[in-house]
């Protein structure tokens, strides 16, 4: 509950960030969506005991955020907000996998702790990649980009309209929630029967709204075909950059750069 609340408060911030202007923001949305996909697949494809080799991916993300002017604190806060879930699932690894992997002086590091760390790191990286993608592209452009890449038109429109009405209806839901809390004492009226009527009321108003929206669309000439305005142009620069970034990501996946750096540093 509180999570949804604060998440909605944060949504506006994401939209604000998407409206910034930077070399990353100016890239074609398709390039950014595909890059995010390559990034996620690279991170996820690591072996489950790998930890250090994923660090360069954090560096890559940090670099993108720096160029695009996305504040790191914001992204980290959002990642921390959803971290408990990954903790919960990963927590069993140290208990169930106790084979020692290596020794750090007197401390024995078991495979379970290693894979637990790995889960947390890949969780952080994938969630942050998602947030950065939306923050440098914007929801609208992500949808249009996906539509250009073959997503069914009706689904793209569904996403765009959903995003538009989500805020309106969420505010309505919040108002109802607040009104009920103000009138309920000692937990009365919070049960399922009242809840059913409450949600049904909300649902009926939602259906009425859908009818009004539909009539408004008809008034503006909606004839069943959906038209989307597209102003995307895939330039040679976009393509070259995409190719370069993909090569970089694959190289980071292929060669353990953290290892190389460590060797260099330790002189071995």
């Amino acid at each position, binding site marked *: 509950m509180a999570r949804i*609340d604060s998440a909605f408060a944060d949504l506006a911030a994401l939209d604000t960030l998407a409206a910034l202007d930077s070399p990353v923001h100016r890239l074609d949305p398709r390039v950014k969506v595909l890059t995010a996909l390559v990034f996620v697949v690279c991170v996820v*494809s690591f072996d489950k005991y790998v930890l250090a080799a994923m660090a360069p991916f954090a560096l890559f993300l940090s670099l993108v955020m720096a160029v695009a002017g996305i504040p790191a604190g914001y992204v980290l806060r959002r990642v921390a907000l959803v971290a408990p879930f990954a903790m919960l699932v990963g927590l069993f690894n140290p208990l169930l996998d106790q084979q020692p992997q290596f020794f750090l002086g007197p401390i024995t590091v078991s495979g379970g702790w290693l894979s637990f760390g790995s889960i947390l790191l890949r969780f952080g990286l*994938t*969630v942050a*990649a998602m947030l950065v993608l939306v923050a440098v592209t914007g929801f609208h452009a992500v949808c249009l980009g996906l539509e250009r890449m073959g997503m069914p038109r009706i689904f793209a429109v569904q996403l765009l309209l959903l995003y538009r*009405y989500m805020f309106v209806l969420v505010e309505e839901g919040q108002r109802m929630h607040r009104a009920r809390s103000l009138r309920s004492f000692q937990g009365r009226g919070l049960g399922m029967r009242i809840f059913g009527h409450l949600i*049904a009321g*909300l*649902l009926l108003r939602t259906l009425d709204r859908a009818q009004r929206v539909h009539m408004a669309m008809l008034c503006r000439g909606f004839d069943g075909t959906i038209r989307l305005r597209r102003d995307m142009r895939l330039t040679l620069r976009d393509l070259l950059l995409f190719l370069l970034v993909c090569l970089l990501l694959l190289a980071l996946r292929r060669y353990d750069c953290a290892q190389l750096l460590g060797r260099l540093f330790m002189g071995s």
Partner: protein
Amino acid sequence: MHMADALLSPAVGGVFWAASAGAIAFCAKRVQRSLDDRKVPLMAVLGAFIFAAQMINFTIPATGSSGHLGGGMILAILLGPSAAFLTIASVLTVQALFFADGGLLALGCNIFNLGVFPCFLAYPLIYRPIAGDGASPLRLGLGATLAAIVGLQLGALGVVFETIASGISELPVNAFVWAMLPIHLAIGLVEGLVTTAVVASVRKARPEILAAAAASRPLGSLSLGRVLAGLGVAALITGGALSWFASASPDGLEWSMARASGKEELAAPEQGLHSWLARLQEKVAILPDYAFRTNSSTPAAGEEATPSWPAVDAGTTASGLVGGGLTMLLAAALGLVFRRRTPLR
């Protein structure tokens, strides 16, 4: 429960992405063919309604904890399976993009778990036969509750299957199943009761809405044979792909890289791995209280896991740790340097 990227292997994620994308394309075609342009805003606004309804919670009787509506079954009852599936998929996409529920790769799994099962199995096979035209409140309630329970149970099983098949988490299958199913049985029961309450209330206030939804045969008459055939194909692909990827230790990317570059990622793993394992066993023998391999809770882990271990030796590990630490520091430093360049608002 949402699947997360961190628990997925690319093979499993890719297979479910393909399955969900296929289902979305199929449903999009069906909805477009139904030529009911009222559906366009209706689906969007009902998707937004799901978000709004989740703002309001209720106390679950006898436990004192609070829950909120999931909403899949209400959408299916009001919109029919195809349109409901598209709506659920769009809600999950927004959740993945904005609330970091799941992730880009896990989106396919989530759409499959929370969309395909309730819309294409629970709704046509359980809700429709039991509830009929929705005239009897008892049958409607029974159908909605049973359908919600079955849909959520299947979804929970999907999560278990995807997690186990990916092999990132160490959870043993049995324990995971026995943790997930009872929880989701309770959640499904509550969801079903709430769905019943909402639908009954709507029926009392505006019966024509449900009548219209129930009478819309083009959406209600989903040809069962095709759905089952589609699911069968998906299962075949899943099984085939999984057995393929599970057969050898290199995962998909490593495999394709090995093919592209002509060599494996780990150069000369054979003797390194073996000598390392031998050293490990010596060390373990020196530490007898480690319960190595006699741990009954992970009977096969020792045998299964060893081939996929990276060939770790002390020097490699140390330089990996140092290098990884340095890289993370560098990333943090970058973040700090650029922290105040642009204000958030």
